[in-house]
């Protein structure tokens, strides 16, 4: 860990200016991933700009019903928030499926989205990794591949994004609010994380010095209320996803009025299964239809011996998640399927 300067501005604009002006400065939030990286030698910043105590720690409902979540709301507080629990259960479920109680008390909303892959080679500075050291090669290709991406990977990188929360936010069409030197901009979740392409070193579309200040969830609806998150993992708790599914389903009788599906553990970013959603929307709900829709989304998947299991696993997990939502829908309406 290199010697570094620590500063704690009291104003978000100062923080942004401080990092924007210095290519060797980084924001420090909850620290659960960044401090880890400092110790592993992955990052060697000269300056840490602590934004974790900026007053961006409130959950507020805007006049139009949008739920604004300050970037410094801790994961545990967000999960326990009464509005989130009742109106956006996929968010609470995703948060509670991640990390541990202690880490959720520490990790922030923005930091959660900005956490980096847990690919074992990325975290091991003694092995080549294009994400860590562009041009050095990808050790995961031809190496340990159990957690590797099956969708949207490139020859440069097969890493997966580790966040649970981001998958739920992707499914619910959240918007990330970002403050830069030139003011605020709003980035839909679908444009926030990148696929690796030739530049796996870049995880998101943020510029250096841009600070996530809040995340906004659209006004609650029948769809957001009927949302859920299912995570498949080796250990029963305190483990990253093999695959995960955030889903929301609104049925009109048997007919899928609207549906949202996003996958975790399959790609370099939360994977919104748009083709699967399209295939289901307006169709009669059935388990077979969901499986077929998932297969459609997975048609472009590329797998190796270590991660081929993710295809049936994510397909089944999707069917399982939607079945749970469909069952609850019919409980509510008294309909039988």
């Amino acid at each position: 860990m290199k010697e570094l300067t620590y500063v704690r501005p009291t104003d978000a604009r100062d923080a942004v200016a401080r990092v924007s002006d210095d290519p060797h400065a980084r924001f420090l939030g909850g620290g659960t991933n960044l401090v880890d990286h400092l110790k592993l030698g992955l990052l060697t910043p000269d300056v840490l700009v602590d934004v974790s105590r900026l007053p961006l720690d409130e959950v507020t409902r805007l006049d139009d019903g949008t739920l604004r979540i300050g970037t410094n709301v801790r994961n545990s507080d967000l999960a326990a928030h009464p509005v989130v629990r009742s109106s956006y259960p996929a968010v609470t479920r995703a948060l509670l499926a991640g990390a541990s109680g202690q880490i959720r008390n520490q990790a922030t909303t923005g930091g959660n989205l900005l956490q980096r892959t847990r690919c074992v080679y990325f975290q091991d500075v003694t092995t080549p990794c294009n994400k860590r050291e562009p041009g050095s090669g990808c050790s995961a290709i031809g190496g340990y591949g159990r957690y590797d991406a099956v969708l949207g990977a490139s020859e440069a990188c097969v890493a997966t994004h580790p966040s649970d929360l981001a998958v739920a936010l992707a499914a619910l069409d959240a918007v990330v609010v970002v403050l830069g030197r030139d003011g605020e901009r709003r980035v839909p979740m679908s444009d926030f994380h990148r696929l690796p392409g030739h530049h796996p070193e870049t995880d998101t579309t943020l510029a250096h010095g841009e600070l996530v200040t809040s995340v906004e969830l659209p006004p609650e609806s029948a769809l957001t209320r009927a949302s859920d998150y299912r995570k498949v993992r080796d250990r029963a708790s305190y483990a990253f996803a093999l695959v995960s599914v955030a889903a929301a389903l609104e049925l009109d009788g048997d007919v899928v009025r609207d549906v949202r599906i996003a996958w975790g553990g399959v790609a370099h970013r939360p994977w919104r299964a748009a083709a699967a959603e399209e295939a289901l929307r307006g169709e009669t709900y059935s388990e077979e239809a969901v499986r077929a829709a998932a297969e459609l989304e997975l048609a472009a998947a590329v797998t190796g011996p270590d991660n081929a299991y993710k295809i049936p696993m994510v397909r089944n997990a999707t069917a399982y998640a939607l079945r749970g939502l469909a069952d609850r829908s019919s409980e509510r309406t008294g309909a039988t399927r």
Partner: protein
Amino acid sequence: MTVQQARPVPNRAVGIASERVDGREKVTGLATYAAEHRDLQLDDPLHAWMVTSTIARGRVLRVDASAALALPGVERVLDHENAPRAASTDDRELAVLQDDRVGFRGQIVALVLAETPEAAREGARLVSVHYDAEPATVTLDAAGEDDFYAPEQVNAGHETDLEQGDVEAGLAGAAVRVEGRYSTPAEHNSPMEPHAATARWDGSVLTMYDSTQAVHAVAATLAPILGLEQSQLRVLAPYVGGGFGSKGLPHAPEVAAAMAAMAVEGRPVKLVVTRQQMFALTGYRPETISHVRIGAEPDGRIVALEHAAIGGTSRIKEYAEQTATAARMMYAGEHRRTTHRVAALDVAVPSWMRAPGEMPGMFALEVALDELAEACGVDPVDLRVRNEPELDPETGNPYNDRRLVECLQRGAERFGWADRPTSPQAIVDGDWWVGTGVASATYPTLWMPGNTARITADEDGRYGVAIGAVDIGTGARTVLAQIAADALDVDVASIDLAIGDTDLPAATVAGGSAGTGSWGTAIVQAAQQFRADHGDTPDPGVQTTGTAESYPDSVGHALHSFGATFAEVRVHRWTGELRVTRLLGVYSVGRVINPTTARSQFLGGLIMGLSGALFEESVRDSRFGHVVTQDLATYHVASHADVRGLEVDWLDEEDHLATPMGSRGVGEIGIVGTAAAIANAAHHATGVRVRDLPLTADLFLDVPPLP
């Protein structure tokens, strides 16, 4: 009168469930582990950080420490050219920084000493090591057939091969045959306390707090390397945060700490192995592959049994896991062949991990038994009962008190085995397949000679009992006081026990499930000698020291413990996730000295077995040569949420052939057979037979219905 041999003692304190005597220090965190000592002038240490090799084989050409030495706070950087010379380099694992050879990726190639841990870590990052890399062989797959050889013996001194009868003829003539290849991956002990040492050299004595299972063994092993007399090393280990075998033998970091301390005379040095470095430098259970062939009568009685085990070892130091030894004594059968072959690889040095041999070997054998039961249409419990030998098949000796059948039957009753459907895929509960499985467990009763205990009469009817034993969490500190109390016929409260220090009488390792039995025998013998010397009302200050060289009652018997493990698992029909919902172990281990601490040992073994069944796998990258799942986020061990529905039971018995206390060991048997019981239950649940650990979710996706 001289007490030549400890005599059995009536139990008063022994057998009573009592609270862990060092629990208060532990629940407050005030117990001090190897990196937490400030006494003995260990305040203000230099912090040592290891630089480890990034090639698997070759030579160090040059260590450039200039950038590191330029950092404020960095005091010294030791490498193979400037480190103190070892007096002996016979043990290449322990010949730290003695030459330019690299034998595995992760080997120590430099050591940074700095005023703060931050400076030490950064200094290590800045040390630049230049190598001449050579082609390396790091996996069993890459090893050629010619690379496998028969070691002279396997771990714990067992014979490499053993052949009885004519296995091929027996198999050829058998009515039923099953055959399979079973494997267990490399596993890391991963105690919660990382290996660590704090050492100080004052010019004549090296004092070292160490995280070890054997203080005297550390002194005895390190002294000739450091060129010291054993009396010049004082090793202390008052508290040790688990070991499970990895702290049973000294490893390279302890040598590095000692060497560094001698290089900076007068200044203490603290070295804490990072969690990642533990995956290369502190031992591990090597990968095993077992080929098992069984021939049986139609009713399941075994006629011929072959267990051929292969595995990997390190080219710089041989360790051969005794994978096939349990097959020598477990079941009846006329024809038998057990063999071990290893390939020397350019990998880190494997070593002991809880129940070496029995854990992987009994996984293979007990899954094979389940397959035999299926092939014969015999209940798996009955099959094991039918194959009960009268005499030990390996030696022909009578058993001490073999009660496997009783364990199986008691377990079956308690578990509700009778209600179990015969065929797989018979139970569906919601989204889950449900299944149950059984496996036997066994562990040899080892007894280590040479333990010495000292009994001292103190004021007010108190007694000091001293022995250099180590409590790594087993409860030794609690149970040895109970043993001493009975041996002296006084209350436990009158005993002042001292352990964990080479200034105390010599003791053997806390390992092989032999610590309590071996140390306890020495305490009993010393106590009996004490009473013979000083009577029942000794003058304060008198003392007696006794050494237990043997416990001859055991001669001529096959001494083993036994057990039966029953598992219930649920496998998610959609996602393949496997959860163990019930686990029962019933054990025959002689006298249980303290039911509270023994129960925790059994539970701990069962949980480590569960963890190995479902999660643990040290993945070695075939290109680089090191374990890439080298932390606790990628090398999963069981968490709270994975551990449900555990039960432990044991038979009420005593075994005075084993020890004067009537006890055998309890530390290892809980892990044995557990993974097999879980794999067998998973087969019962789903019909999927898994022969390779761990049992991960991907193996149970889209399970087809049985015909």
